[in-house]
Each structure stands twice: as C-alpha cells, then as structure tokens.
C-alpha cells in the first residue's frame, strides 16, 4: 500500500518535471512553464516541566508540527502535494500523528464541462450534513478523501459531483470506502425564462454511501453499506436569503452511538435579511443520531464523513472562548439569532464615524428523548423521541452584545458583554460536573500612535462560581507596521477556590514579518482546556514553554 502511494507521489513529481522540460524545450513558441506556488508552516514548542499547572511531562522536551504545500498549475492541469512532519506531534494533538510523509497529493485537469481529480481531495455536499472533508491544522483535523472525484457540468445551471475514495486517518487511510453523488440545479440558469427574475432558486440533492467489511469479531450484525441522503433548497430574493437542508441516514451502529440501529436525521435552516446598516439572521438545527464515519469503530474526531454546523457565535477573544460549544452528533437541537445594526454617522450615538452594534443569542439542548430498556429494545433503537422539536437538557447558551466604535482616526473601541451557560458534563464528557454559568466582559482598545506605530489593549473578565472560578485577562500589543509586533498577556485564575491554583498564565510574543514570511516566538504558560472551531474540538493540555512559528509562502 505504502509503495503504491510512493509511486503515485513520485509520478506527480516526474510529471511536473516533464511538463517543465517540455516548456523549456519549446524553442519556437513562448515557453509556458506553468506556475508553482506553495506555503510552509512550522510550529515547534519546547516544554518546561510545570507541575503547578499540571502540565504533562514531555520526555522528548520538544514537539514539532510542520507542513509544506506545493501546487503546480499549467493551463487546465494542476497537481499538488503536502509534506507533513510530526516529530513528535505537539502536545494536545493526537499521537497517531507521528513521523513524516506525503499523505496529500493530487492531479487534476479541467475542461469546460468536466473536472477530474485523482489522489487526495476535499469536498462538501451542501452544508456538509452528509459529506464534508476538510483540513484544520489547529484542530489536527484532516479527513481528506483519497480516490477519484469527477465534477460535471452537463448544461447551464446543472452541477454534478461524484466522489469515490477512502478517508485519511492520521498517517494512513481508514478501512471504509466512501461513495457519493451530488446534484445541484440553479433554476435561474437552467430555465432561460427565469434568468432575469429577482428570485433566485437553487435546488440540491446528495447521496453518500460508505462500505466497511465486518471483521466478524464484533457483537452485532452490522450493516456493511450505510447510506445517507440529503435535500436542500436555497432561495434568494433581494435582501432576503433562505436556505434549508434535511438529511437522513439509515441504521449505522458505531462506537460513537453505542452501536444502536436508530436511523439518523439532521435538519438545518437559516434565514437572513440584510440592507445597508442592518442585518438579521435566524438559524436553527436539529440533529438526531447523525454521527457518520467511514469506520464504525472510530471515535473522537477520527474518520468523520459529515460535518454538522455549529449554531453558536464563533468567538475570537480568549474569555469568550473559555467554554466553547461542541456539536453533539448523537443528538442536539438549537437555534441562533443575530442582529447587526450601524448607528448612522452624525447622530448622537453614531458620532463622527457611526457605531456598530451586534446582538447575538444562541442556545443548544439535547433532544427530548426516552431511553429504551434493553429488554424492550430487541432491534437496538436505543431511545425514542418524546417530541420531534422538544428541547431536553440544556447544553449551551450564549448571549452577546457587542459595540464597535471608532472615536477618531486614531482610536477604536470594541466592547462586549456575554452571558454563557455551559454543560461541561456533556460537552467535555465529564459526568457529574455542574452546569457552568458565566458572565464575561471584554474591552479591546486600539490606539494608532503614528502611521506605523499602534498599540492595542485587551482587557477581559470572566465571572463564574463554578468550575475553576473567575478569571481575568489582559493583553498589550505593540505593532511597528509592517514588520514587527510585540505582545504580552496574562490570564489569571484569581477566583479559584484553591489558593494554590490561583495561577497566572503569562505569555510574551515577538513577531517579525517581511514579505510573505513570518517568524513568531512566544514564551509562557498555556492553560488546559478545549479548542474548538465550528463545533469541532480538541483537548489542549496545560503547557509551559517556548513556541516558535515559521510561516512562509511563495
């Protein structure tokens, strides 16, 4: 298997070399050598032992994650690869990321109606409820498909996609095969009579099936082929947009759902209105047993085929992200509402530059279900729903008010108040821990001293009686544009009921930028917690040490 991949990768490189050579040797016409682009990133950390923050002892003292992307394009042809190195993986990343290798590589060509890709690829059907493969380095998440993808545009307004492959799992590939087909029709493009209509309608439908053989050592009779389908609609008219997708999955017993045979469902809908100075959006979702993986024994974030959107505000400040929501694929229901409004310039509250206001509310709960007693559940449905749209135990709630105000050409303020409810027992899988209620305040001030010098202050406070108690956080960042920045920050757990745990997590950062290159050096302590992007999370252990980041692109 490894040999096949090696040959494949070498083939890409040889092919690229041949194409370049052909270009160079073409004496009678302008050489078209194509273009090579890429980027490099390395994150390395040196770990100091620190029992005060319960940082795990790292025998190798350092960890390093590095990536090099290389993409070649010439006319309709493109090829690419990514070299990755984990020696050893940084703390908090799954240790199955180990060693170095080329796990991502592809060749693709495109004609007017057809695009064919062989090798690795990322793909998404609709909102991702039945298929989404993507990479997020911060999460250590990569579920790329390895195989064949065909995109076909048979006529105007019709877009077809077919995929066939296996999924990446750390430094190898999973045991299951994923097949999928997606069709999307833009009615306004398809029917010429609708071309000039103000209302734009897009319909979509997808089907994904996975196959995994049964080793015969398991407990139950498992389905070898598991299919999931989805239907979606997107209607856009002027300032209003509406989209809705429903997905269904047949029986899919797995380690993630405790090997129950209940079908899965997901419903996602969002409506928005926007005009100058005003934006309103309302989104809702219902997920029921929709964990979908190409390996029925996989757990955590491994070998997921689909993606279930997170309907809570994506926060950027540390205290607002202290207790982040994580999507529960086995079942949850929730909604999010957001209003943004710009108070006009020249008014009492708008001042000279106007004032941006944002109010956001989101809530997520478990489904209203009833566990079935094993003796009465011979088909292992696991549970049944008391009511389809009923809310069960609360998982997460977040209320935000944000004011973004520019006072002068040199001075800008962002102020945020948030109230959050966090069910740590469910979200972090720590049964018995109480619900956490927190109130958070954030102030972000930027003062521009000159055209090249600016200073930013960030002050945050999180109040809670639960968990580790209250925190405060401060940051000062000095930027010498466009080359350099220096920052110092501290997070202090001053409200911890255990005095020895009232720890300062200080951090200093120095960054240097030139062209498309950046080198950044940080030293300090990192608190233990979870890091989430879009409802997908990984655990971050406490650490103390020096971090070097090098980023370059060409």
């Amino acid at each position, binding site marked *: 298997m490894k040999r096949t991949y090696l040959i494949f990768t070498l083939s890409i490189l040889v092919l690229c070399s041949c194409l370049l050579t052909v270009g160079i040797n073409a004496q009678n016409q302008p050489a078209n050598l194509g273009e090579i682009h890429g980027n490099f990133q390395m994150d390395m950390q040196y770990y100091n032992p620190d029992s005060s923050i319960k940082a795990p002892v790292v025998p190798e003292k350092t960890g390093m994650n590095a990536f090099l992307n290389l993409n070649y394009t010439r006319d309709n042809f493109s090829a690419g690869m990514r070299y990755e190195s984990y020696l050893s993986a940084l703390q908090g990343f799954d240790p199955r990321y180990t060693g170095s290798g080329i796990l991502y590589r592809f060749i693709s060509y495109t004609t007017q109606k057809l695009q064919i890709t062989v090798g690795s690829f990322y793909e998404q059907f609709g909102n991702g409820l039945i298929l989404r493969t993507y990479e997020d380095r911060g999460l250590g998440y990569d579920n790329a498909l390895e195989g064949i993808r065909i995109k076909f545009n048979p006529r105007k307004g019709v877009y077809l996609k077919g995929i066939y492959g296996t999924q990446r799992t750390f430094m190898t590939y999973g045991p299951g095969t994923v097949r999928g087909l997606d069709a999307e029709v833009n009615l306004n493009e398809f029917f010429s009579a609708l071309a000039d209509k103000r209302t734009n309608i897009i319909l979509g439908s997808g089907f994904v099936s996975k196959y995994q053989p049964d080793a015969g050592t398991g407990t139950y009779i498992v389905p070898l082929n598991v299919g999931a389908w989805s239907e979606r609609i997107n209607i856009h008219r002027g300032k209003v947009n509406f989209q809705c997708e429903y997905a269904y999955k047949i029986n899919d*017993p797995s380690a993630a759902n405790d090997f129950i045979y209940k079908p899965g469902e997901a419903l996602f809908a969002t409506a928005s209105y926007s005009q100058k100075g005003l934006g309103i959006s309302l989104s809702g979702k219902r997920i029921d047993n929709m964990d979908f993986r190409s390996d029925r024994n996989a757990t955590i974030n491994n070998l997921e085929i689909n993606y279930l959107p997170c309907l809570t505000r994506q926060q950027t400040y540390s205290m607002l992200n202290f207790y982040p929501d994580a999507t529960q694929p086995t079942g949850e229901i929730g909604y999010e509402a957001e209003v943004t409004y710009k108070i006009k310039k020249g008014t009492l509250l708008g001042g000279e530059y106007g004032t941006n206001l944002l109010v956001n509310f989101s809530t997520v709960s478990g489904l209203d279900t009833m566990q079935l007693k094993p003796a009465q559940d011979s088909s292992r449905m696991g549970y049944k729903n008391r009511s389809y749209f009923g809310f069960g135990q609360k998982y997460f709630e977040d209320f935000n008010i944000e004011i973004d105000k520019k006072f002068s050409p040199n001075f800008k303020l962002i102020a945020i108040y948030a109230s959050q409810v966090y069910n740590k027992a469910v979200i972090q899988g720590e049964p018995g821990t109480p619900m956490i209620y927190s109130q958070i305040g954030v102030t972000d001030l930027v003062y521009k001293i000159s055209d090249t010098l600016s200073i930013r202050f960030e002050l945050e406070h999180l109040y809670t009686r639960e968990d580790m108690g209250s925190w405060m956080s401060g940051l000062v960042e000095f930027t010498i544009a466009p080359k350099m920045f220096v920052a110092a920050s501290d997070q202090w757990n001053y409200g911890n009921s255990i005095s020895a745990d009232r720890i300062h997590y200080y951090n200093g950062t120095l960054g240097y930028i030139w062209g498309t290159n950046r080198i950044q050096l940080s030293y300090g302590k990192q608190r233990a917690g979870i890091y989430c992007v879009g409802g997908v999370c990984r655990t971050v252990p406490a650490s103390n040490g020096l971090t070097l980041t090098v980023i370059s692109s060409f």
Partner: protein
Amino acid sequence: MKHVFFLSFLIALGMLSSCDYVTMPYPKNKVIQGGGTGFVKKVLLEDYTATQCTNCPAAGIIADGLRTANGGRVITIGVHIGSLSQPSGTVFTQDFRTTAGNNYNNLFVNADATGYPSGMVDRVFIGNPAVYFLGTGNWVSSVNSRLMTQDSAFLTISNTYSSTTRTLSTKVLTTSVSPLPNTYRLTVLLTEDSIQAPQKDQDSTQLPNATVINYWHRYVLRDAINNNHSGWGDTLTLPHHPSVVGDTVSKTYSYSIPSMFLTIPCNDKHCYVVAFLYDAATYEILQVEQQKVY
C-alpha cells in the same frame, strides 16, 4: 457524449443506492457487548458481606440504592468473606466464599477483626489512618466523590457464550483516554445476581434468629475468570508507556461456568462479567465495566 455521462451517473446512483437495513441486530449465537459508551467514569462498590451477619442486608440496601440511582455508573459486587460466611448448622449450609474474595479480605478488609459489613469504593486508600475499607455510612459520599473524578480509561466487554456447553469467551478491550504512567492490572470476575439463599437480618420479622430463608443475594462474586481464580488479574501492557490517548489493548479469556459453585447452583442467565483496571501499586481502580454473560 452527454448521454454517456448521464447514463454513468444513473449507474453510479444505482450502485450507491445499496444500503443494508438490519432489523435484528443480535446474531443467533448471541454475543453481548457492554461499555465503550465514551468517557464515563464508572465506580465499583464492593460490599464485603456474610450470610450470618445480621447488619449486612442493610448494607445491601445501600448498595442497591447506589446502583439503581446512578444509571449503570455504579457497579456493585457482594463479596462473601470471613467466619460469618462459614457453613453452619442445618440452615446455613451454603458457602459463597471464593478464592478471590478471601484474597481481598486478607489484604484489604480483614472483616473478622474490623467488623461486618464493610466496603470498598474503587479501592481508594483513604482516611487517617488510611484504609481501604469503609463503613456503610461513607459509601454514598465516597461513591459520589468517585463519580466526579475524570476517567482515564474505558473498557468494553464482549461476551460470546454457548448456553449448551456453558462456555464463555469474554473479550475486554481497554482504551486509554489519558496518559497512564504506572503499571496496571486487569481483573475479570464472574458475578451472579439474584441467588436465593438464607441470610441473617436483624431487621427481619422472620424467625427464628432473624433468619430470612429465601433472601435475594444480589450480584454475588462467584469466581475470578483470569489469573487462576486469584482475583489479582493480569498485567496490562499498553502500546506506549506512559500510555497515550487512544492506546488500546484487547484481552480474551475462555471460561466454563460451572453448574454449581461448591453446593450452590449457578444460573448462567443471571451471570455477569465484571472487569476492572487498577493501579498495580496502589490497587486503586481506574475504571470498571460490567456485562451480562448472555
């Protein structure tokens, strides 16, 4: 050309439509699996008891309450030990004692000296002076405290059993969910629920001598499946040391369930496999799981 592509997509659609619906998940040769439900800490409460201990049924009620109140997260074992478990007279002719139970009593409890009933919650060495055994008054708080702890491993038990030959194959899958820096052992026990046998009970109105002839003994330790019945289990070697998250090791044991243990018949329909992972140096139990034999 267009038609060829459309036809290809239709063929692909037909191929992809293959979905396997399973209406009866359980195979005829029944295999039962338990555990593996995720990162949930379960707690083992060992009730050290004896048939001729008049206070012991009251302790059994506490154990039953903790088990039922915690939705499967508390696993209880009734371990019959000591001189009050010796057959005596014409009523107390049955002996529930086991090699494993005797070993545990000798090391942790010594009930004849310290008193009956006694218990251990995850075998935590606690108190001043520190001891393993706890009086019944501390069981609830100790169990609740242990339920709050973070788990560091989880266990999955898969049982394959033939009721004809009474042969059991039990597979225990241990998965590390946080680094395990020490040496650990895995013990696999057999328990039997709902055995009717005489029991002294000071709260009973049945006479003579407050003896309940048809007392229901719950989740009684019947034998240790691995390590020669000793109860000390086997050393568990995970792929890494210290283990890393996701490290997994599988152990499979074969065992024939006797129709009788000493003079007491064994009803295999009421039998359970209990597996627990413990620190070899401190004996503290990290995780426990239970699964019915069939």
